[in-house]
């Protein structure tokens, strides 16, 4: 049977392609977008919920901002799950970053809320708390997955004689 050997440059092309697909900065950029959009949306939702006396046009404008924020969140989440995918260790890093940023956001809102008795800041702190819980759930799940995969990797390496 005729051999169908790949062109010699193919492996290098594929390695370049893989490098581009898995590049860290692009992934972190989308993660940053997701976090920033989440925080902005939380602040605007907090304003909408706690300021019932806003003029209708302002409420509509804030509603539009919430829709824009949710769209950016959806887009960034889609990219991170379908295009610039997060693999095991990346998910742990992303989970830590999300937990840290959400924690700072929550604590900051809470501090402002206490200091100024501002209801919007308190509402933002509540939403920040929800974000912390979601980030913690993502982090715990990612850490468990990495732990399970690492354990299985070690077993297989021993089984294949690659590790003593």
């Amino acid at each position: 049977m005729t051999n169908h050997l790949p062109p010699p440059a193919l492996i290098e092309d594929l390695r370049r392609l893989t490098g581009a697909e898995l590049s860290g900065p692009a992934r972190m950029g989308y993660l940053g977008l997701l976090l920033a959009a989440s925080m902005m949306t939380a602040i605007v939702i907090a304003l909408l919920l706690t300021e019932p006396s806003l003029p209708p046009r302002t409420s509509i404008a804030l509603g539009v901002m919430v829709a824009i924020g949710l769209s950016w969140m959806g887009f960034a989440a889609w990219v991170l799950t379908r295009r610039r995918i997060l693999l095991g260790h990346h998910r742990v890093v992303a989970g830590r970053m999300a937990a840290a940023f959400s924690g700072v956001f929550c604590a900051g809102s809470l501090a402002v809320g206490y200091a100024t008795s501002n209801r919007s800041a308190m509402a933002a702190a509540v939403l920040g708390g929800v974000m912390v819980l979601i980030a913690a759930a993502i982090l715990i799940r990612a850490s468990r997955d990495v732990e399970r995969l690492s354990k299985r990797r070690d077993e297989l390496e021993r089984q294949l004689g690659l590790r003593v």
Partner: protein
Amino acid sequence: MTTTEHNPAADELLAIRCQLGEPAAFDDLIARWHAPLWSFVRRLVGSDDAAQEIFQDVWIRVIRSMPQLRDGTRLRAWLFGITRRTVMDHLRQEYARAPPVDLDVDEIAAEASAEDAADLEVLERALVGLPIIEREVLTLFYLQELSLNEVAEALKVPLGTVKSRLFRAKRLLRQAMAARGVQP
């Protein structure tokens, strides 16, 4: 022929390293699997140029789908399944652009040059001339040496369908070979 020794444990290890995001894991995946997958694509599409365009898409899909691979021991069937779906998507686009062409065994046989030096060369040409459904099942089972279950998984069809396609493919190949004056 390009085949890779089937080692489910090594495949599982490779899949896990990729899923963990180890920097060198995808290089190792490419090193281990690019040749058999290239050979499969090349046989399905019939030319290096067309195969090269499709092959990059195959690897992009492999990378992006890696978190969805549940059982690393089935990496081989999973990779061929993605490759096959990518080829089919490209061919679907091609067929949508080009008018349909009727294939029959006599026509396939007539395309072979009278100077075919070796039976194996004739077999290769006959295989390339077969309809894609028959070509892919023959390539996976005989040339890439996947088991019937793995072929079924790669093609996403029941085992019985694989058997009937193999039966039909062998008959068509025999007819094409006989029409070229070669005893299969």
